[in-house]
């Protein structure tokens, strides 16, 4: 059941609109409910062939030899495609916006880096014949040592997953193996804190589970062009990726999509289009390449697992004074989009709270598993799980109501965020208040009266003097410290907290900026 709370922020809106705000029926409703909406796989083209890839059985192995002789003679086979047939076999998705190095082949050539990596593709008259021929391709593998744990991958002597990134980490700004966030001085914050809580959180990989699996159909069109029906979530992203891999001008391709059976982030990677088009180019026939459910689930990219270490310093009245984050994003064998999720995650720290000292180191790590990709809440979902579980533990430690604890620490209009931009248009406080009302969760009067539009800014708008990677002072003897391997237990004799928004612990003049010209591997040389 949905209730529109028009009474809140009413002075910021004009509600006298004719079409906006109406529950108009969807434009595509009739097609969807009668099963007549056209998806990519509804196109049945004359003479259409079927493409099936052969996938690696090993998570990490050198390829000594690929023998396709028997497969070539298999019934119905039109063409077998190998890495050497792909015009530009190495690519990385975000090269379209100059972020990262080409690190992933369309078809593996010298090495496979995850179980299920495509090694060769068979184009045949029927799906069954393509499957049968793929089984007849003989690949001579030399298995290599593997690494599956993100922290193991960072250790000296760990197997190198992806030679483009020999330290098993994505490179930020050409120099760092992680993206940093530095705001204030967390060590000073921890030193002054009454409680320090360190906890570890772990998310597991998750499947997008769309109704419609990834796929596309490519067909030769008139005048040397190719028409491509696709399930992509990003039409031009996929088109431009194909233009690069196939080394052809982008207007060679006519991409048609737009109606997709669920994406959730799993249809950005352009997994099928390059090979479908290449198959059509090599055979002169329409070619369909669609993932089966098992392929989608095991070798389609999942939501990546993230491991997060959170360390918070808190005063006994419930004010959080420092938050330090170390996180590892498991990218699998190739970059795809996890490199970007790291940046998004850093910007999200420390969650929707005003904390005067924040520190983050977030890594994009390569392991021998199916490459991860975007998924709903990309870069943020696991961090929100960690932060919000941590918030509950912190409230418990000081004996505060978890709702009131969030209201106390909530960010407000005018506060400075850790990525050094002013918070505007905030509404966390109102969401907590309304959710409490809905759930009949009692809040004290002073917490009910709080507003995102009041008591922000001022001292909370300052950018604190920021410590750049130095050791902090020793902690006081009275501090209650809960390390990573212990569960938090509330301290005895906590004081009732007051709902005053926390002033920053170390308001100080802003340090000099880091020079007028900065170089970034993300964006190149730029003047501020």
């Amino acid at each position, binding site marked *: 059941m949905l209730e529109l709370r028009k009474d809140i922020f009413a002075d910021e809106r004009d509600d006298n609109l004719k079409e906006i705000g109406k529950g108009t029926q969807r434009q595509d409703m009739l097609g969807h409910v009668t099963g007549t909406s056209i998806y990519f796989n509804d196109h049945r083209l004359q003479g259409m062939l079927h493409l099936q890839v052969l996938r690696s059985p090993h998570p990490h192995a050198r390829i000594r030899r690929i023998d396709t002789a028997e497969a070539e003679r298999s019934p119905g086979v039109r063409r077998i495609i190998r890495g050497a047939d792909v015009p530009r076999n190495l690519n990385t998705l975000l090269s379209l916006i100059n972020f990262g190095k080409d690190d992933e082949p369309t078809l593996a050539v010298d090495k496979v880096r995850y179980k299920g990596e495509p090694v060769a593709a068979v184009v045949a008259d029927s799906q069954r014949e393509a499957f049968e021929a793929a089984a007849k391709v003989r690949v001579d593998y030399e298995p290599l040592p593997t690494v599956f744990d993100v922290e193991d991958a960072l250790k000296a002597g760990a197997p190198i997953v992806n030679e483009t990134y020999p330290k098993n980490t994505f490179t930020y700004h050409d120099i760092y193996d992680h*993206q940093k966030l530095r705001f204030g001085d967390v060590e000073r914050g921890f030193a002054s804190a009454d409680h320090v809580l360190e906890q570890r959180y772990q998310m597991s990989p998750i499947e997008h589970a769309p109704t419609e699996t990834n796929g596309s159909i490519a067909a030769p069109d008139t005048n040397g062009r190719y028409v491509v029906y696709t399930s992509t979530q990003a039409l*031009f992203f996929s088109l431009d990726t194909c233009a690069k891999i196939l080394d052809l001008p982008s207007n060679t391709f006519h991409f048609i999509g737009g109606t997709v059976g669920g994406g959730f982030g799993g249809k950005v990677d352009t997994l099928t289009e390059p090979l479908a088009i290449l198959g059509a180019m090599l055979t002169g026939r329409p070619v369909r390449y669609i993932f089966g459910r098992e392929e989608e689930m095991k070798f389609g990219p999942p939501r990546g697992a993230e491991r997060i270490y959170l360390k918070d310093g808190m005063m006994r009245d419930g004010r959080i004074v420092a938050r330090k984050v170390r996180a590892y994003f498991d990218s699998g064998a190739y970059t795809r989009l996890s490199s970007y999720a790291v940046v998004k995650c850093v910007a999200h720290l420390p969650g929707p709270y005003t904390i005067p000292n924040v520190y983050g180191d977030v890594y994009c790590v390569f*392991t021998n598993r199916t490459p991860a990709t975007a998924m709903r809440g990309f870069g943020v979902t696991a961090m929100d799980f960690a932060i919000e579980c941590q918030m509950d533990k912190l409230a418990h430690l000081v004996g505060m109501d978890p709702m009131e604890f969030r209201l106390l620490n909530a960010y407000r209009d005018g506060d400075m965020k850790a990525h050094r931009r002013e918070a505007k248009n905030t509404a966390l406080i109102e*969401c907590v208040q309304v959710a409490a009302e809905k759930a009949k969760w009692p809040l004290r009067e002073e917490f009910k009266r709080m507003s995102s539009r009041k008591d922000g800014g001022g001292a909370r708008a300052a950018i604190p003097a920021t410590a750049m990677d130095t050791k902090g002072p020793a902690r006081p003897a009275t501090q209650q410290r809960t390390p990573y391997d212990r569960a938090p237990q509330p301290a005895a004799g906590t004081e009732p907290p007051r709902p005053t928004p926390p002033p920053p612990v170390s308001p100080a003049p802003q340090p000099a900026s880091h020079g007028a010209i900065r170089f970034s591997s993300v964006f190149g040389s730029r003047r501020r």
Partner: protein
Amino acid sequence: MARHRGRGIASINYPIGMNLGGDPSQALVHSNPSGKFTVALSSIDLGQGMKSVTRQICAETLGVPVEDVYVDTADSDTGPHCMGSFASRGTHRVGNAVMAAAKEARGVMMEAAAEELEVNATDLETDGRGNIHVKGAPHRSISTKDVAIAAQFKQGKTISGRGIFLVPLSAVDPETGEMSPATCYAHACMVAEVEVDDETGEVAMMRMDSAYELGRALNPRLVEQQLVGGAWMGVSHALYETTEPYYPDPRHGPRDFVEYLMPGPGDICPHDIAVLERPAADGPFGAKGPGEMCANPVMPAVANAIFNAVGVRVDELPITPEKVLRAIKAQGGARPQARR
């Protein structure tokens, strides 16, 4: 052995759009000679309702009924460039591009109407029902259909518009992480109530109460569809789903929906939702976007509710019965916390 109830909360915010390489989307709007408008996009409708939301934005901006607008997407030969449907950017970025294109088209439409009515275009207004009339004088009116015919066959005007919305790229400071990651943020708070069986470790969802702030609910029914579905994805992530049940050990991965667990119809519970609207200064009619973030608060709210019910913290997702049961055993039995 018993079943224990518990409640947990989580509150979150979420950035709208992406901060990497600039974030543009384009739209084209044009009228046919009957006064029916087409919006040409290359954006994708994943089922979330992209076509419907942009259709409403176009109709509102033009001042015509929604039935007179059709959204055509996604064809790379006819639809102008869009980054794609991800990063909660559809409503905000594409919506803004459609709004800009519709504004331009409306300008031509009003000029054409002014010529027919022999008045100044600034003296005209639309009634939202397919007519343009002189302000304060509804009888001096012309239908958008007649304006479109006149523009095409008499005046030689094209009632069309181009729109682009670009959030320019923002450099990221390598030392401090200083950046402009997004122009606006959506917000949410979720209260989850669970029942935990201390004999089996199973967690049942009993109830969800939530508040979501989305800027502007352009279409409340589409918003409801997103929030209800998204919350269930959150529950599924919290309690059921993973492709690697013993991560980082990669073995025992599921192959299909028989082995990959998700909640079924018997697992759902009531979900009472409040929607708040604090318009974003740069959103189309103030809209932000509900798509991604609605799943996020559910996972921690469920984890916190489990703690409230039986006193165990499971810090690894998904929170399977095995993990709950092991944690309960490790602490020597359920320790229900104060009811709330």
